[in-house]
């Protein structure tokens, strides 16, 4: 709109709008926009916070590329995402389907399954670390009562530590997927099922031809946020394993924390953060493109 056409009222409205936006603009610039740019710049520097930063060009990225630990970290994070996301989504979907058909006590179940979501991950991690304690934890006590001889060492075993962390994250996250799937299910029009029933569709084919396609926008949403959330796993690792044993559960965000705040390698930590950013960005964009191909809107 050319400026000359703006009436006095429109101009007043425009000024009011910017005044209303001012606090958010300042906070957004200071704590989000500028930090994103700074993180990008810091990733090209050597900086330990005590001496002035030195230009490092691509050193940090090359360093990451050649660092066997970083490769292990990426592998661990991938392993975590590939197991945790489908498990959490599948269990969440099953719970949602079960709770959407009018079984007795469903309001109660909905609350119970959701409780771990509002639970502090640090506290939950502590409880589970205690449950998974290889000598005195309830899980191994139970297994030995069942007659299992070769008890897993769980959090101190490089083979079992990651599955244990994944189990806890599924426990904590499935209620979140469940609630979203429930909302998606409740959005599907009842009359579609009635029409299908009149046509003689069985329960299974109604699920396959109505529920699943119409739930796909929600499935797609849950998938994206679960993947993005899973790439950022940190608290459970911090509390349960401290990334051990020998980096078996070291993940991307723990690696960023370790380099930034234990080793004071701000450049390396920022470069790793950029890798995380890139992964999240690419996933979001790829999913956004795929969305139109396999997601059905009503």
């Amino acid at each position: 709109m050319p400026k000359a056409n703006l009436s006095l009222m429109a101009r007043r409205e425009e000024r009011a709008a910017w005044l209303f936006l001012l606090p958010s603009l300042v906070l957004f610039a200071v704590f989000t926009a500028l930090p994103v740019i700074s993180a990008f710049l810091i990733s090209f520097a050597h900086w330990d916070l005590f001496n002035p930063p030195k230009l490092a060009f691509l050193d940090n990225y090359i360093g990451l590329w050649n660092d066997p630990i970083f490769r292990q970290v990426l592998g661990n994070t991938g392993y975590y995402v590939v197991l945790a996301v489908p498990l959490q989504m599948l269990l969440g979907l099953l719970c949602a389907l079960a709770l959407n058909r009018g079984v007795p006590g469903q309001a109660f179940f909905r609350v119970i399954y959701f409780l771990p979501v509002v639970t502090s991950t640090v506290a939950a991690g502590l409880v589970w670390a205690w449950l998974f304690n290889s000598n005195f934890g309830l899980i191994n006590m139970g297994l030995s009562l069942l007659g299992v001889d070769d008890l897993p060492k769980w959090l101190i075993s490089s083979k079992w530590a990651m599955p244990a962390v994944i189990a806890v994250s599924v426990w904590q996250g499935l209620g979140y997927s469940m609630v979203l799937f429930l909302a998606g299910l409740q959005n599907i029009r009842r009359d579609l099922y009635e029409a299908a029933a009149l046509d003689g569709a069985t329960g299974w084919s109604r699920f396959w031809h109505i529920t699943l396609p119409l739930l796909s926008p929600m499935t797609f949403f849950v998938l994206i946020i679960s993947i993005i959330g899973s790439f950022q796993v940190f608290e459970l690792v911090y509390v349960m394993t401290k990334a051990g044993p020998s980096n078996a559960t070291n993940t991307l965000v723990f690696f960023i924390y370790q380099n930034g705040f234990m080793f004071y390698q701000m450049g390396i930590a920022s470069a790793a953060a950029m890798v995380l950013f890139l992964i999240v960005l690419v996933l979001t964009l790829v999913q956004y493109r795929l969305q139109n191909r396999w997601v059905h809107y009503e």
Partner: protein
Amino acid sequence: MNSDGRSTPTLTDWLIFLALLAGAILMCGPFIWMISTSFKPSSEVFAFPPTLLSAHPQPGNYLRIFTTIRFGQALLNSVIVATSVTVLQLIVCSMAAYAFACLRFRGREVLFLIYLAALMVPSQVTLIPNFILIRNLGWIDTYQGLILPYAFSSFGTFLLRQYMKTIPGELIEAARIDGANHLQIYAGVVVPLALPALGALAIFTFVAQWNNFLWPLITTSKPSMQVTTVTLASLQGQFNTDWPLLMTGSVLAIVPMLVVFALGNRSFISGITAGSFGGR
């Protein structure tokens, strides 16, 4: 009523009920074990077979945690930080949302897209620059250092804007004809009508802040400034086999959120789901 329109539970419904019950026990198990351990004397923790109810319950664990470490201060800090962040976010986000939903200005769509794009930025990306900023400001171990970086959220703005868009334009127009200015329309018409969305955002933000860990971990070093999650994690290092004390701390960290959730579980869940439908 179930999906077939019948109102009496079928055999399948009861089988599903049993499966859900088994699942519920698994979901609750850790909470029950945590509470059970928190009442045990240290010696009993390693008993085999394990006991659920101690023969010698130790409610004193709940006093011990306040006397051996500054757990009371940590709980207080969590309340201060979570409350301040929540109040600030409600103000800042509702103001921005009002501008996006109810006012016309050049650059509105572009700016909204920029705010939305920020949702894609993982918080760990801004972690290091924000830490350096807070450190240079001398804000390590301060409330403002814990609070201000969270005073604005793209998610909150988005959530409120979507809700405010559903407010009928005639209501705002009527107020305008009555001579109300934008501040009066915001505070007198839009905010009262957006209360359900504000409530959802408030609960959502409070819970997220109470459970927040990484930022307070790196920006506090004095025990007197630590929040509950950080104190709890540091307990693990100091008392690493004192499981009753660790479980007592966990109970105290979890229970306030269960209360908040019990009071507002509908709006909490509507906050989560509103975010998912908004993108359509």
